[in-house]
């Protein structure tokens, strides 16, 4: 799961992850998406850029 807040500054970033993922999968430029979503600081931007979703891989091993 995407972290609730940015590790560094504490801004809530998890709310925009769904939109980010959808637009990224539609091959949009990540820079433009992040700018649109209002993530100005590089600490918040890396939270989305570097996230790897693994919850679906964990679920079978319940």
């Amino acid at each position, binding site marked *: 799961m995407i972290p609730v807040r940015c590790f560094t*500054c*504490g801004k809530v970033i998890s709310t925009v*992850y769904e939109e980010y993922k959808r637009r990224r999968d539609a091959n949009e430029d990540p820079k433009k998406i992040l700018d649109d979503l209002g993530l100005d600081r590089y600490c918040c931007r890396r939270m989305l850029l570097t996230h790897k979703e693994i919850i679906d891989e964990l679920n079978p091993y319940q």
Partner: protein
Amino acid sequence: MKIEFSSLEESAASFILSDVSIAFANALRRAMTSEVMAFAIEDVKIYDNTSALFDEILTHRLGLIPLVTDPDNFVPRSQCSCDGTGCPRCTVTLTMSVEGPCVVMSGDLVSQDAFVQPAEDKIPIVKLEKSQKVVIEAQAYMERGIEHAKWSPVTVCGYKNYPAITHDERCDGCGLCVEVCPKDILQVKGSVIGVKDGVLELCSLCRLCELACLNSGIGNEPAIHIGMDERKFLFTVESAGALPTVGIIKHGLLFLKNHSDELHEALSEIRG
């Protein structure tokens, strides 16, 4: 003390604080980050958790959800008459009962208080597959940000000195400093250097312009001088969602006022 707002929204504000010392500006910053109280979930009773996340991770995620805070109608638990056991004056109970398949959102939390609610409804907590369940009861109360960052009402809260850019008579308007300025705030006006209109506040005091001036072979001292106003500060405050920025600033200032009053009283007692 004077406060001039250049922008003021619920979630972010920037203002100029003038006629104060550096110590006061820093005290205000520290008061806003670590002394202004906000609600956050602290104790969680887990009745059922068959999701892929451990109980600890689940509760950690719950704790980080900002809750809208009403500091006037609640008392901090440490000052409450219930002695820290939890009562309606200091504690709000939130419950959640969700069964998959779905993504559990912060909006699924049902608060017993009409005002103290998750600041945002779309914070994902955990993804549930078919027949997975999360049933919890959480207690939230007000605490200071100094105890844990989840109780801090701000994300970004900082200040810098107000810049003062001047040049002396040796400036010949060569434009070397204009090229190196990363914020692009300088321009050549006639045969001397000047600051573009309305962008002086963007200056980050990096002094690359002074360096460029020295490298032009002007001598031991640069012709452009980056100074700062010692009694004027540019503040930036961003709210995490618990309180509006105005509330954070107000309560930060109130905290300073109350503490200086206490100090004043203590000193008068000693003096007799």
